[in-house]
């Protein structure tokens, strides 16, 4: 992927294109609606472009670097929302209506629209920390070890948090 090349020689355009869907998915796991996720994703890549020279391929993979930017940017966004009194949970009511058409994707053949909506609703009920880790693990496909490094936790702790988060989601689904 060219991630071992010096930053000046990296094909950032290609890297950005490759990672755009994954970053969006991560952001969408963490925020309540598509539009906000799209805006935040665009802002994340704006920052990545602005600070692309600071990326050192010898220190981390591009996916780690861009995920870190996304993680921090979404945290800032959520923090600002809290300060302005708009909690992300308020947007949960609109989540179901804003979901993309599940029939349009292959995944829709294995997971129904209703199940998706129920799962996202339950996702909104997780604590922010649980949601962060679930988003990193399932939205951005980051391994437990890297999640631990990113959040300053132990890997075992990440595993336990994931276990508990999944148990909560399971319980939420059963309630529904």
């Amino acid at each position: 992927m060219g991630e071992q090349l010096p930053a000046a020689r990296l094909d950032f355009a290609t890297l950005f294109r490759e990672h755009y869907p994954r970053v969006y998915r991560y952001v969408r796991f963490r925020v309540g609606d598509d539009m906000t996720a799209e805006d935040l994703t665009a802002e994340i890549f704006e920052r990545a472009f602005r600070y692309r020279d600071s990326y050192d391929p010898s220190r981390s993979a591009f996916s780690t670097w861009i995920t870190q930017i996304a993680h921090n940017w979404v945290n800032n966004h959520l923090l600002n929302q809290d300060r302005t009194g708009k909690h992300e949970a308020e947007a949960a009511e609109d989540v179901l209506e804003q979901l993309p058409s599940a029939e349009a994707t292959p995944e829709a053949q294995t997971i129904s629209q209703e199940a998706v909506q129920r799962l996202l609703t339950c996702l909104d009920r997780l604590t922010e920390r649980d949601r962060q880790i679930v988003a990193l693990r399932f939205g951005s496909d980051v391994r437990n070890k890297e999640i631990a490094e990113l959040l300053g936790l132990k890997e075992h702790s990440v595993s336990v948090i994931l276990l508990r988060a999944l148990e909560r989601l399971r319980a939420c689904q059963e309630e529904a």
Partner: protein
Amino acid sequence: MSEQERADALARDLERLLAGERLPEGDPLLEVASALSRLPLQPGEQATLRFEQRLDEWFGKPAPPPRQRIPLPALVVGTVIAAIVIGLLLLAILSNRPVSVPTPTVMPTAVPPQTTIPTVPTITLRPLPSLSPSPSPTSTAVTATATYQTATSATPSATPPAQTITPQPFSRVVVAGPIESLQDSIVVILGQSIQVTGNLPRMCVGDLVRIEVNVSADGSFHADRSSIVVETSACSPGQVTAGPGRSGGSGSGDGRRDDDHHHDD
């Protein structure tokens, strides 16, 4: 099994799950995890388009994909087929193009067989180049380069050059040779009778003359008196002459008239 052990076991299962492995069904947590990993969350088309535009602004347009190279055999076959098609087209065009085949009505038959006068080396029928643009209806398209020359074994070619497009009723040629006979206004040169308009200049049988002749459509030769040039005179006392004061093809001459004889063309 402690929570930590369950968490570690789950972490390992998740690794396999997210790597694409199929895990045995029945574990409710893995089912939730599987559902999470398959959530259809994708950016909208508009957002993707805006993102691409931003990338173009930042990095410029992506390079076009490399052109697909045509396999060499296909290229060779295609080239051969194209060449054949072009060749056939050219052949068809050329074969359908009307070819102007001259059908001259004027045949330079003025040259008699060489055997009749073996002493004369050549008879030249030469179209006059200056006559080609002549407005006269008697002008001919016989090209100026057409020279009909009889050799000992040669027969005069009656085929005009291919450049002759429009057959003309007349042709104008130069007949050069010795006079065989003189009868009134008819001069016979190498077997070809030439009707001369006007009084004949002083000429004798045996004179080597050059006459610009109009050839009619019926093959008859006509010449004006002024178009006769006596190259070499063979006149001698008692020889058949034609000229002023003379008519007919026989009789003794009364002397050469210089004005006629030295007619210079």
